[in-house]
């Protein structure tokens, strides 16, 4: 028996076991809800009263720490700017003609459901788990799927790059505009209920003041930004290898 693959496997086994044990220990070390201290206790206790949102993560992201969220989504904006600048050299490109009939038909059936799912995750971000980032990513997944399965020219005819640009900038503007409303009300940038936004009934769709609006803004930004990144990259790939389906044909 060759000794080296055997040693490799034993090492892999030990690594996996070690990782598993550490993960379980991490789960076991998580404090119960009663013994949480510091800001976390404040959030858990008062988030629904102070923001009107049932989803505490959403309340923290878009109310208490909304300024950080603005910075995070600006990171994506910067990445999109850089990648578009790097990859936009060639103006004319050929697109692949897509995958097989089965894949096209299947994705054609799935795509509307995926878009609906993304919309629900964005719009219900203040009630249930989810929010702008997650929903926007799912929306970008739809455009990536269309790019891969139908070819990038098909995708760009449905979602033109210009539209994506304006959606992304619109999301950023909406976010900053909502923040400026708080500033105009005299309570500080991105303030929520204290700036006079209605809290609504907790758990209903129209509640939690600015949180749903900020979710929509971030969803526009993330969805349009990620799909713009993927489109500009696959555009270049399509230009350099002229392939019919999944790589050069023998």
């Amino acid at each position, binding site marked *: 028996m060759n000794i080296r693959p055997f040693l490799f496997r034993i090492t892999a086994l030990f690594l996996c076991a070690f990782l598993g044990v550490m993960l379980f220990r991490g789960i076991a070390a998580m404090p119960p809800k009663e013994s949480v201290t510091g800001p976390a206790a404040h959030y858990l206790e008062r988030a629904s009263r102070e923001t009107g949102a049932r989803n505490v993560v959403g309340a923290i992201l878009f109310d208490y720490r909304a300024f950080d969220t603005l910075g995070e989504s600006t990171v994506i904006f910067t990445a999109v700017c850089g990648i578009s600048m790097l990859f936009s050299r060639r103006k004319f490109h050929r697109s692949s003609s897509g995958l*097989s009939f089965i894949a096209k038909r299947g994705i054609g059936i799935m795509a509307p459901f995926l878009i609906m799912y993304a919309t629900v995750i964005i719009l219900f971000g203040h009630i249930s788990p989810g929010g702008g980032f997650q929903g926007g990513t799912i929306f970008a997944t739809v455009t990536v799927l269309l790019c891969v399965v139908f070819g990038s020219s098909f995708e760009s005819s449905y979602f033109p790059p210009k539209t994506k640009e304006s959606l992304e900038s619109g999301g950023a503007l909406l976010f900053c505009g909502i923040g400026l409303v708080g500033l105009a009300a005299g309570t500080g940038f991105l303030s929520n209920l204290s700036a006079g936004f209605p809290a609504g009934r907790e758990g209903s769709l129209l509640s939690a003041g600015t949180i749903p609006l900020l979710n929509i803004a971030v969803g526009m930004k993330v969805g349009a930004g990620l799909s713009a990144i993927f489109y500009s990259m696959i555009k270049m790939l399509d230009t350099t290898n002229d392939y019919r389906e*999944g*790589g050069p044909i023998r």
Partner: protein
Amino acid sequence: MSPVLREALAFLLMAGGAFFSFASVIGIIRFPDVYTRIHSGTKALTGGATLILLGAALYAPSWQIAAKLFLIAGFLMATNPIASHALSRACYRHGMRPEVIFVDEYGPVADEEAKK
């Protein structure tokens, strides 16, 4: 159906799903070439995940949750085979051949498509 019988059936389905998932892992490690591995991954994953979801749907406290789980199972059964279909087709187009071939119905079609 009595609750005990329902729970027993749910656990039986979940155990079957876990068995399928385990078989899928072994298949991915042990099978010789890419197509048999894709086969093992897809079939056992679709079957295993679907069985676990069906068991969870039986175990679920309300019919709304069960309906959601059925939806998830339906989407898994619809998308997973499509993904592995595209994957194996891309592998064939890329020039990978199975180790042992008895019937190859796709080869002539692929040649014709390549000529176009």
